[in-house]
Each structure stands twice: as C-alpha cells, then as structure tokens.
C-alpha cells in the first residue's frame, strides 16, 4: 500500500554547532533582490534610478581611476606588502633594546581616584573597576600602568601600526595622541569590570593652520590585536587649551583673509550640523528595543493591598485608557495575585489610607509611567488621588523576576545587535565627515594660497602649528587607545628602490615614512619596485633600521631632489653612525 508520509522515530538531532554551520546572513544578503512583483511608489523608483545612476557614475570614475592610476604591479606590491606584514607581529617594535616606559599609579579599588600624568593628562578611575580573569571582583590595591605616545618617534618605537582598513581602503591614522593602559595586581593583569570605564583627559598637541580656531574632527579608536585593526569607538571630544594660542587671528574687517576664514568656519559648522542630523537619523533607523521593567517585591512590613480588577475596569474606556486597561488585564492574568503599595510620593501615609479609605464607593486607575499608577478613590463626597505601584509576592514575584531576567537578557542581546548594526553606519558617517572636513580645509588652504600669490602677506598660514588640546574620552577596557583621524593615501606614487650608500639593496625590510605636517608614521615594505605614496609639498622623512641596528635615513632635503615628473626613484639611504641605546638616540637622529 502506498504511503503518504515518511514517519521516523527518534531521529538524530542536530547540535547548535551543526545548525550554525549553515548560518550566513551576508551570503543571504548578497542573494537578496527586492521583490519585483509589486509596483513601488514613484519616489522609491526614482530613488532606485538615482542610486543606479550614481552607481554607474561611480563605476565610470572607478574605470577612469583604475585606467590611469592603478596597474597590476601596484596590486602585486600591495599583495607582497600585505603578505610581508602578515608574517610580522602586529605590534612590531623595531628596536628590541628601546623599551617603553610606563607610569604607575596605585589605586585602592574601594576608592578609585583621579591620577595626573606629567603632561597634564588625567585618568579618572571609578570604584570597583576591576575584575579577575574569572570575573570575580578585585579587592585591595591595583597598579595602573599608563603611557602616552605623541609624535612619530613614539609611534615608530611602539611598533603600533598607524593604518586603518575600512571598506577595503587603507587609511593612515593621523594621531592627536595615543595611550596604552592596563592594570595589574601582584604582577598579574586584571580586567576592567564590564560595567565600568576610565575617563581619560589626554593632553596633547595637534597640527593645524594658525588661521583656525576650531579643532579638526578626530575620533577615538581602540586597537584590536586579534583582528589586527583599529576599531572605531566614538568621536573625540577635543577642546583647545586657550592659553596655548600661538598666533592671533587677523580680525581686521579689511583683511581679505577674514572672509575666507569665516567661510571656512561656516562650512565646518554646516558639516557639524549635518553630522548631528545624520547621527540622529542613524539612531532612529534602528529603534531601541523597549527596556523591561524590573518587578517590585511587596514590602510586607509596609501597607500592601490588593484591588479587584473588576473594580478597576472601566467598561466605557477607549483610546489610550483602553490600552492601559488591556495592559493591566494582562498583568492580572499573568499572576495569581496582583498587589499594590503606595509609591514614595503617594501624597498620603499608609495609616491615612488604611483608616480613612478602607471602604470606598468607586475606584478609577490611570497609568502614569511603567511603575506608577494614579488611583482615584471615591468615598461619599470625598475623592482622593494617590500614586501606587504594582508589587508582587512569593511565587508571583519569582515568576516575574524570572520573566524580567529573561526579557532583560533578550533586551541586552538586542541592544548589542543594534549597536553592532549602527556602528557600521556610524563608521561610514565618520569617514564621510572627516573627508568633508578635509576638503573644506583644502579649499581654505587653496584660497589662502591664492591670496598669497596675489601678494597678500599671510606668512603664518604657510606653517602648520601645534595647538595644545585636551582629548576627552571613555576607555571601556584596557589596551591601546588612539585619538586620530583617517587620512587617505597621498596620490603621488613613485616606484621606489632602496639602496645603501655603498650600493647594496635594502629589500624585504620594514621602512618608515613621515610627512611632518601629519602626526603619524607610515610603515611599509622596502623592496625593489615598492610603490610609495607621498606629498611632494611636505617635509618628508624616510628611514629604516639596518642589520647592525643603526638608522639609515632619506632626509627632507633629499626628497626635494626627486625630479618633479619622476615615476621611479632610487632612494639612497644615509646610514647614521650612531649607536641606538635609548629613545633619545632615535630622536637625535630623526629630528636632526
């Protein structure tokens, strides 16, 4: 006889791991095509075509760009460099004998404290901020180890990469100060407690034009050594320190530069306004889940009473009131016994309620917030409004608490999902804003340069000056934190070879390049046929460490000697015959 079903008893069950093997949302998203069966509203169709047109234009630009600037050898070198650095430690200190020095602060975990670094930076450590590896709280004293890195020598010696990969583009991070922070007890590292953080006020200097009186936009990144990348955390709340002002702005109304400066400031303001609006839109695009309300346990030492739901029910309720009543009905249906207590600001004492309103002729209830209801009691011609809270007791409370804990875990999980989803958009926005600010600055500088070419004297704008700032951020974990902004690679690309003065090639070596108008260091692979991006108009310095632990340099004046239209260049590195024993020796060589 033909069977209709294939009935199987006690089949093999799949483990979570086996199920998870098939889970791949990104693959699904790639397959996703919006449903075509439904005619979309006109504005959506227009949006589609606008996006399509933009995509086509972007593609065309990409084709032009790749046709003129990119070729296979660049890709080969990029791959070669990537392979090389993959085999190197992610944090790759170049000189074993030059060790970083950390400041130490002893913290009583029960008191926390504020600690000041010689630079003027501050660390604000809360109480009970540390846990052991197993999650248990640390008691007693903890030693916080802290160091700051401010300039290209610091970055170079630390071996910390100053590149940031985002959406397939490699940016260099220009820093406004970097810190490394961790904590120990009896020589063992301890963790930061999950709900705690250390507030950091990092005093540093940033490069900027003397004409500016607003700080450039910087972000906060934390180094993820496992993922081998920086992870965006937040916007750097940077403030300028006024007394450090080096050049007064020319505010003379007759100054042509003033209009340019005002225009630039207005642009910055517009960018900031647009950034805030877009951030708000991003937040709204993924609404926050509703936070569950923790149930309140009945305090049996106080006055607890119960109310019959039939008495509270208003059969004529409509709209919001009907919704509130439905909620209340659900509460009553979930628990064996709904109880009530006077809220702290009830406006009446327990005794007054108990003695004066034990018998009432009518009751009405209205929700004020998630925990508070307004109860109207009618007794003869007396009417009383009091604030009450729903409370639970015994197994009801246990059940409600269990429900709350489950809902809270669910809420936390979804908040986490939300944060992760929003972070991608925020990162993209930050990059966009940074680019807009960069373009605004570029425009400003070009206009000033134009004025100069017409004979106006704006000598000060030719210089990049250091302005003292305080970077404020919250460190929610130990590690390396960086206040910085991503800068795209310079467009000038040279094919480079590196040789010693005696003609020997430097290959398969880490080399470093600094543009002195940027507070960063670019780490790359010195190899025959290396592709080097740099800004011809800046003060550039290139160096590497020789096999005998000396520094070989290619100085800014040497860069000036590179022919204007050159596509290739042989960098002859000058070895400095100075033994490198400590940081000062490095500074002596690189700051010559």
């Amino acid at each position, binding site marked *: 006889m033909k069977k209709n079903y*294939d009935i199987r008893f006690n089949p093999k069950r799949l483990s979570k791991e086996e199920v998870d093997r098939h889970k791949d949302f990104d693959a699904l*998203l790639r397959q996703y095509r919006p449903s075509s069966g439904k005619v979309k509203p006109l504005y959506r169709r227009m949006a589609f075509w606008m996006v399509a047109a933009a995509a086509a234009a972007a593609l065309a630009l990409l084709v032009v760009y790749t046709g003129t600037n990119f070729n296979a050898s660049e890709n080969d070198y990029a791959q070669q460099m990537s392979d090389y650095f993959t085999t190197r430690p992610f944090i790759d200190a170049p000189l074993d004998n030059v060790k970083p020095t950390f400041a130490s602060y002893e913290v009583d975990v029960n008191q926390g404290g504020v600690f000041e670094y010689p630079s003027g930076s501050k660390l604000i450590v809360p109480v009970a901020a540390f846990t052991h590896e197993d999650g248990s709280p640390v008691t007693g004293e903890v030693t916080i180890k802290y160091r700051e890195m401010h300039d290209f020598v610091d970055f170079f010696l630390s071996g910390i990469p100053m590149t940031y990969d985002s959406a397939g583009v490699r940016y260099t991070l220009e820093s406004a100060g970097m810190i490394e922070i961790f904590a120990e007890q009896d020589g063992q590292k301890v963790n930061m407690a999950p709900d705690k953080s250390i507030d950091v006020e990092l005093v540093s200097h940033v490069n900027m034009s003397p004409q500016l009186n607003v700080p450039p936009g910087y972000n906060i990144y934390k180094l993820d050594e496992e993922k081998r990348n920086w992870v965006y955390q937040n916007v750097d709340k940077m403030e300028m320190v006024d007394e450090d002002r080096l050049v007064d702005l020319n505010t003379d109304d007759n100054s042509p530069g003033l209009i340019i400066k005002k225009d630039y400031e207005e642009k910055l303001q517009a960018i900031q306004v647009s950034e805030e609006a877009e951030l708000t839109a991003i937040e709204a695009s993924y609404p926050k889940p509703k936070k569950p309300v923790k149930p309140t346990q009945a305090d049996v030492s106080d006055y607890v009473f119960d109310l019959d739901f039939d008495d509270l029910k208003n059969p004529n309720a409509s709209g919001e009131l009907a919704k509130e009543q439905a909620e209340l009905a659900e509460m009553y249906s979930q628990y064996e016994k709904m109880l009530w207590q006077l809220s702290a600001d009830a406006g009446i004492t327990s005794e007054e309620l108990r003695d004066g309103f034990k018998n009432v002729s009518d009751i009405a209830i209205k929700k004020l917030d998630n925990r508070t209801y307004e109860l109207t009691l009618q007794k003869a011609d007396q009417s009383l409004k009091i604030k009450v809270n729903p409370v639970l007791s015994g197994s009801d409370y246990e059940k409600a608490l269990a429900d709350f804990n489950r*809902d809270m875990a669910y809420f936390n999980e*979804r908040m986490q*999902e939300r944060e992760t989803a929003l972070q991608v958009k925020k990162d993209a926005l930050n990059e966009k804003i940074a680019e807009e600010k960069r373009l605004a600055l570029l425009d400003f500088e070009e206009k000033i340069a134009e004025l100069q070419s017409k004979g106006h004297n704006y000598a000060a704008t030719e210089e990049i000056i250091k302005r003292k700032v305080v970077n404020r951020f919250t460190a929610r974990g130990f590690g390396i934190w960086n206040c910085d902004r991503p800068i795209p690679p310079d467009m000038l690309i040279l094919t480079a070879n590196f040789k010693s003065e005696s003609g020997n090639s430097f290959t398969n070596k880490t080399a470093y390049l600094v543009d002195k108008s940027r507070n960063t260091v670019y780490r790359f692979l010195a190899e025959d046929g290396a592709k080097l991006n740099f800004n011809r108009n800046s003060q550039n310095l290139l160096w590497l460490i020789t096999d005998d632990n000396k520094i070989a340099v290619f100085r800014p004046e040497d860069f000036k000697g590179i022919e204007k239209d050159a596509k290739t260049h042989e960098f002859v590195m000058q070895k400095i015959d100075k033994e490198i024993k400590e940081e000062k020796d490095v500074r002596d060589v690189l700051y010559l």
Partner: protein
Amino acid sequence: MVLFPFNDTQVTRWGLLTQRMSINLQISRTLVKKEGLMNSFRRTVSAEAMQSEWTEIQAAQSDPAMFRPLYNRYFEQIFNFVYKRTLNEELCSDIVSQVFLKAMQRLESYTFQGVPFSAWLFRIASNEVAQHYRKTQKNRVVSIEDYNLNSMFDEMETDDMAPFRSVLVNSLDELREGDLEIIELRFFEQRPFKEVADILGITESNAKVRTYRVLERLKKIMLKKVKSE
C-alpha cells in the same frame, strides 16, 4: 467595595490567599484535563517583546541589512523546524535560505497584527517544505520523539497505549496533511496552542477545536485498526 489590606491582618490574609490559590489551582487542573493545557503555560513571546520586535521589522523594511538581528534570532528555530520535516542537513539548509530570502522579499508587506514574527517565518517555512515535497513527489518526513507520544495518548484518554503504538504509523499515514500538521505542531513539537494558532493563522480556540477533532479522528482510525488486527 473594600480595599483589602495585606499586612495588618497578615496571618488571616495569607490564609485567605492560600485558600484562593488552591481554588485557582483546582480550576487550572480542570482546564488541564478538559482542554489539554498541560504544556500551554510556557510563554512564547511577551507583548512587549513583540512590540519591540516590530520596531526592528520596520527598520528592516527600509533597509534589508537590518534584517540581520531577526535572522540571527530565528535561524536556529527555523532550521530545526525544517530539519524535522526533511532530516537532510543540506536540503534543509537550502530550504531555510529560501525561507529567509522570501521573508526579506515579502517583508515590505508585513504588518504587525499582535502575532510573533516567528509565526510568520514558520508559516513561510511550512509552505516551502510543502512546495519541496510537491515538486519532488516524495513522502514528507514526519519526526516523532517517543517521549512526546505520551501527551497525545493522554489526551486521547487511552489507559493502555501498547496496542495503539503498533498501529500509530499506519494511522497517522491516513491523516490529511493539514490534520497531521496540527498534531505535529501540538504534540510532536510540544507547542502551546497559542503558538500553533499563530503558525496556522487561526485563533487559539479554533486551534484547540481542530486539535481535538483530529485527535478524535485519529483515535477512531487507530481503534479500527486495533480491532482488525
């Protein structure tokens, strides 16, 4: 109308409460016996969670990438649902991909009707499974765990299950697809009536009525088979 104080006559009050609770429990037990609510106290999704989830769905309606949290949340449930109906990991994986792809494509038309989002996904999954078996003309797999049979036999009020077990497979085979599905959801997968109703897109009371009708039908088939053996 009296406001019952809870603490001034605490002992008496607790006594009263206990008495009331015992009455409530009696009522519950009657309901359990009468309506088979044995497992239906398990809450599925709270009203708050559903409301909150609706905001996520709206976000995903305007940006498919925002579907990720919903996918992550329900992937395992949907996978297990389909797996029990296929018992083939790779086939199951393909069907589940189709389920989520269709969900994303149809999300624009989804409106919140006070039913968990998962129910909508289960409905799509159920249709996809049915479609697969229609196309391949193979017999649909029905997975049964031994220990889940007891609750079904309890509901049938059969004291001696042994003779029924031997005819169960042949009897189930005589059920229509829709009838078997309701037995599968309710007893083989131990889902509360509310969830069964949500998945089938019917009311909870309708789900109960249909379940008992199918149970009656199944019982008759089984009795007939036992007698003829």
